[in-house]
């Protein structure tokens, strides 16, 4: 056997053993047990403390409020949305108390009118909506209802109301176009307001022969806009000028 072979064998053996040994030291414990990562890292993350207990935990003690809330318009609003993180309170109910926000600034976080908010979400202008009155004096946050059935549709449909207020349709009541049963105000999703279904409805004001003030723009209902219905091109809550 040439002299080089045993030397190379020794050299490679040393390298191989060195690699294995170095790997033992450099690759951390539990690396590769589950995947290409330290399984102990998952254990460490799992061990993190939680701040939010979750609404089911609240219901264990406050079942009356939980039941009330679940039947209300706030059924999807978990307790900790308003009362803040409650894991500590759940563990030490007597020592740690949770805040109950009563100031006027809190409810508008969700209910202040904002054009970016979806249509139909109940929004108010905090500046003009019963100023200085805390929200709770009229609305129960666990079962919010308007103290009186709203007279104005804008109480809930703020976005539409505000657009209409600056449009040419400002003088029209919502009910001119939307036949609405009283019950819609109490059960907004079960009893829905009506909508015009055909061109002739808009034609009652805008047709050439319509019996309406002369300042209202007129079109020939027979030829204008072909087969389209009016609201496919025009937005009735904010009709285009020109």
């Amino acid at each position, binding site marked *: 056997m040439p002299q080089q072979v045993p030397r190379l064998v020794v050299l490679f053996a040393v390298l191989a053993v060195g690699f294995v040994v170095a790997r033992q030291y450099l690759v951390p414990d539990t690396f590769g047990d589950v995947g290409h*990562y*330290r399984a102990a890292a998952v254990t460490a993350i799992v061990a993190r403390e939680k701040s939010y207990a979750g609404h089911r935990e609240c219901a264990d003690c406050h079942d009356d409020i939980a039941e009330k809330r679940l039947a209300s318009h706030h059924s999807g609003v978990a307790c900790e949305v308003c009362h803040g993180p409650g894991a500590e309170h759940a563990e030490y109910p007597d020592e740690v108390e949770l805040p109950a926000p009563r100031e006027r600034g809190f409810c508008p976080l969700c209910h202040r009118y904002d054009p*970016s908010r979806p249509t139909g979400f109940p929004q108010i202008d905090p500046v003009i909506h019963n100023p200085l009155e805390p929200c709770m004096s009229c609305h129960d946050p666990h079962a919010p209802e308007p103290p009186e059935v709203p007279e104005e549709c804008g109480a809930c449909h703020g976005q539409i109301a505000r657009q209409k207020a600056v449009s040419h349709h400002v003088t029209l009541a919502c009910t001119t176009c939307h036949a609405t049963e009283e019950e819609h105000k109490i059960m907004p999703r079960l009893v829905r307001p009506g909508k015009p279904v055909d061109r002739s409805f808009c034609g009652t004001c805008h047709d050439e022969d319509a019996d309406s003030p002369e300042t209202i723009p007129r079109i020939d209902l027979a030829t204008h806009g072909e087969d389209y219905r009016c609201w496919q091109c025009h937005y009735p809550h904010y009709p285009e000028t020109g």
Partner: protein
Amino acid sequence: MAGEGGRVEAGCGPPVEHEVDRREFLEQALRAGLGVPILLGVVRIQDLAAGEARQEGYEPSEHYYGMGVDVERCIGCGMCAKACKTENDVPLEPYYFNTWIERYVIQTDGEVVVDSPNGGLDGFPRAQSEGEIQRTFFVPKLCNHCEDPPCVQVCPVGATFTTEDGAVLVDEEYCIGCRYCIQACPYGARWFHPEKHVAAKCTLCYHRLVEGLVPACVEVCPTGARVFGEVEHRATPLARFMRLNEIQVLKPHMNTKPRVYYANLDGEVR
């Protein structure tokens, strides 16, 4: 041959006895050096066999999580961003967010104005846009927990990884703070922890999942704009959400296969 031999001699310089001495020295040194690490190595292997302790009663392979976001329902109240910072001890400075809310204002002149003051944590002041608003909405954002996460691919040490149940996590102990993953994330969902000096991100509130709770942001979302659940089972809130809505993901062309599914997403959202 003579020339070569001469070159070797000339190159090595020292007499023959010295050359042998060095070789012997090296051989002996290597022989002596071999034994100790092998012994130590055996000890370390025994350490490894001790294995890891995992959360009892929770089997990651039985789950595969995702999140649904209904843009139509988001009211931009910022509760999710606030709850996330509380739950996960995220520094309060306005640079660090696991989740945040963006406000899109699309003007009639076609200009798109996007802002996210303090991540939407304190709500949104009135839009200061110059032009007339054509449409406007809020978009909650977070780590997409991609099926093919670029951040995991680029990590040089394996400190960021995808768990069996689909959460992309960071190993804080093992992260070397090189920030490659922060660069690689197409969604800007990662940030550098100013005190721990490691990469940080949304964990899907993994510590809550193993207890059967939903992530903090989902818990506190008052309008149900965030839906959490199993991707693959049929009867879960998320599966229903994905059946009943037309679903889009952010930046599909990146082929990251995100697992945050958006409903009613505007084409302007990036």
